[in-house]
């Protein structure tokens, strides 16, 4: 044996041992069932997992969402780190929600990619991630002011409606107007309001109508101006979150005139917990109890002290959840709460969102791909089945067509798969390319294409043998002549695979990964490894007739 050959043998053995060792973790991990995993020591399992191939979301089930952050309304100084803060807030929320190994990454200028593997309740997670959850404590305008606002809306609406010809203050029938008709004509908006404890309410079925009317008038100019800054109105309009039933009558929704400036916002909250019994009228209703920061507590105490007898609204994302009357000054340090028609889960999620902090800017989900756990399992089963059947067919074909040499090619194929899996399990963890369903398809395709290099070589060797060359010369020339062809042919597939790696995302990228690794590995196994085997055999036994 020449020293050159000895080195080659050592190299091939080394690669094979490495590949077998690196891929053994994956095989062990994938072949374990849930109870076996539970019985294993946590540290050991962690180690096994870290050294295994990671499965893509399409195979293990899970959720991939892309969020777009709307930074437009942000002041320049806040926009700078808005993305980082958004990621932090989302990370906090997900941590509290409890997902194993979430991945949250910024992509480009204004996008965040969130990947949550093995998720059970994807809809809830989605709500939780994207929710703005703007909590505000806002003073409700005194009843007299509320009346003024309603009158102004009436007047503005009269102008709009008479201008469009929909309303005439005169009688249409010629008969003198009754008092009720007169009233209705002069108060086209507030005529539908009912008062309870000095607050206006609208019938639930009238709310949509009322909102349409408010959209028809220029509300910002109708509302009284802020005395300190005349360019903005002093108030804003908000609706009660929950409809209320008075006696046996129909359901009503409260109509609030709120101060434009919030007295306090959710940023002053330091802790939030779900607790029952926060609502005296409905003690079983879950609610969220909150503690305010020191400064927030002081503001709260000061406001409640000077506004006794007035309403204070607790507003979440623009809807009023409750608006109790301030009975006395609430000293700093007293917990405050929000209740109102939450389910247990909603209350829990709200507490999470309030604790984790507010998103710096609104976000929208622009892409989402969620795979349920059973589809993921199906895909693995079916993919592996296709792979095994394909593999067996190729093995049979190679053995029948190339006999013992075909056996060597099959061994090279097995080595090829071990190398690909070993490399994929060894690549740096973040972001380690995961095995996706198209990736599995790439691996299957590799089985078919990887033997190509050996087919090229074997066909050459057969040709050389037909030309009456000796076995050793035929092998030597066959490998040499086929080499350039193999290179040329594989480079083009690699170009296509590289493009997939560059432009693809998620699953498609996974295909590019297995395809390119498969081709690279096949160049080694088919050209170097099988050659070593052939050389060893022919040197050792001085074969006169090759089984090919």
């Amino acid at each position, binding site marked *: 044996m020449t020293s050159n050959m000895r080195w080659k043998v050592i190299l091939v053995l080394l690669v094979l041992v490495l590949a077998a060792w690196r891929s053994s973790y994956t095989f062990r991990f994938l072949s374990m069932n849930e109870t076996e995993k539970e019985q294993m020591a946590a540290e050991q399992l962690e180690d096994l997992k870290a050294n295994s191939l990671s499965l893509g979301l399409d195979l293990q089930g899970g959720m991939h969402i892309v969020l777009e952050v709307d930074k437009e309304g942000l002041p320049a100084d806040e926009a700078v780190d808005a993305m980082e803060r958004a990621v932090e807030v989302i990370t906090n929320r997900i941590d509290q929600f409890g997902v194993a190994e979430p991945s949250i990454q910024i992509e480009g200028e204004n996008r965040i990619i969130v990947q949550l593997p093995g998720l059970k309740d994807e809809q809830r997670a989605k709500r939780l991630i994207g929710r703005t959850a703007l909590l505000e404590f806002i003073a409700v305008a005194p009843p007299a002011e509320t009346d003024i606002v309603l009158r102004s809306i009436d007047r503005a609406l009269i102008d709009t409606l008479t201008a469009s010809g929909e309303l005439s203050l005169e009688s249409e029938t010629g008969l003198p107007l009754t008092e009720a008709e007169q009233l209705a004509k002069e108060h086209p908006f507030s005529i539908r309001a009912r008062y309870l404890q000095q607050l206006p309410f609208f019938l639930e079925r009238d709310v949509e109508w009322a909102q349409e009317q408010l959209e028809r008038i220029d509300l910002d100019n109708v509302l009284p101006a802020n005395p300190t800054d005349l360019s903005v109105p002093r108030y804003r309009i908000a609706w009660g979150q929950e409809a209320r039933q008075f006696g046996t009558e129909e359901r009503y929704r409260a109509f609030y005139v709120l101060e434009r400036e919030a007295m306090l916002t959710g940023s002053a909250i330091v802790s939030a917990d779900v607790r029952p019994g926060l609502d005296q009228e409905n003690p079983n209703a879950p609610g969220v109890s909150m503690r305010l920061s020191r400064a927030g507590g002081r503001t709260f105490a000061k406001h409640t002290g000077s506004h006794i007898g007035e309403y204070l609204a607790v507003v979440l994302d623009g809807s009023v959840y409750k608006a109790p009357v301030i009975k006395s000054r609430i000293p700093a340090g007293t917990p405050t709460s929000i209740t109102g028609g939450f389910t247990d889960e909603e209350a829990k999620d709200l507490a999470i969102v309030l604790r984790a902090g507010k998103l710096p800017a609104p976000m929208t989900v622009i892409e989402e791909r969620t795979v349920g756990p059973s589809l993921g399992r199906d895909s693995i089963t079916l993919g592996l089945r296709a792979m095994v059947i394909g593999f067996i067919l190729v093995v049979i074909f190679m053995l029948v067509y190339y006999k013992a040499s075909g056996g060597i090619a099959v061994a090279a194929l097995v080595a090829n798969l071990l190398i690909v899996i070993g490399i994929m399990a060894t690549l740096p963890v973040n972001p380690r390319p995961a095995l996706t369903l198209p990736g599995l398809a790439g691996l299957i395709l590799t089985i078919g294409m990887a033997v190509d290099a050996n087919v090229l070589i074997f066909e050459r060797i057969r040709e050389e043998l037909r030309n009456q060359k000796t076995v050793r010369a035929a092998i030597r020339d066959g490998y040499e002549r086929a080499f350039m062809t193999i290179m040329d042919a*594989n480079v083009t597939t690699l170009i296509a695979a590289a493009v997939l790696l560059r432009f693809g995302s998620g699953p498609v990228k996974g295909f590019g990964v297995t395809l390119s690794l498969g081709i690279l590995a096949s160049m080694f196994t088919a050209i170097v490894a099988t050659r070593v085997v052939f050389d060893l055999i022919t040197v050792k036994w001085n074969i006169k007739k090759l089984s090919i």
Partner: protein
Amino acid sequence: MEFLVGTKFNFLGHRRAAFILSAALILIGVVSIVVQGGLKLGIDFAGGVLLQVRFENPVSAEDIRSTLDAIGVEEAEIQHFGGNREAIIRMSAEWAEEHDAAGEVLTALDERMPDNPAEFMREELVGPKVGQELRGKAAMAILYALIGILIYISIRFEFKFAVGAVAALVHDVAITLGFFSLSGRGLTLPVIAALLTIVGYSLNDTIVIYDRIREDRRKLYGKSFVDIVNISLNESLSRTVVTSVTTLLVVLCLFIFGGEVIKDFAFALTIGIIVGTYSSIYVASPLVVEWQIAAEARKHRK
């Protein structure tokens, strides 16, 4: 075991017939695409929402449709997916933007058919902006792949070979897309990946033959170019067929056993590999021959 060794097929003699066959296949595809008002785009490119649900018992598309109508989802497209227990619901992104699509649809289905519970399998939502971006990305990917390949072949072979190879690629992609349109399948991201793989695979085949032509031109100096190409095609025939067989074996396994999710992808690969094998024999090399004949004719005229 050996077959297709020492063959003397006159591939080039049939090249005109092959050109007509190729043209016809491409034409059928183009007609199908035009008649259907363009290629059908999957939600990756068109945007929208795709929902896959599995029922415990068989379910009719009408039951699903009436449920969707009741909750205000208009113009949903409903298809059975690998059997009549599973369905794919495709709807516009507009409705899903304001609703929790998967949750509301599943609840509505369960309320309507309480004895046939539905299980969530998959949801894909692609906003219109992302759909547009992905279209651009896919186009760029194909463009870059073609440019990269053209450059590589131009370096390794004469220009006329590069032209023949790229023409064969365009031929393969066009026919595969035509079959896609005929079978009513939609274009998705994995299908684009399959197309790129076909490009790589078909080229692989072509290059093996080109390599042989280059070698034989040196070896068989004095023979006519047409004869040389015919000899090269015959010499590499067994390899071409064997590799196609092994690749087709696995791709067919993927198509038959790989499950519904990967079916379109495997379909594209299957068609592409058959057409790619055909084109490396009947399109890529004959085009080089035509080019050579035309060039020689020009030389004689001078």
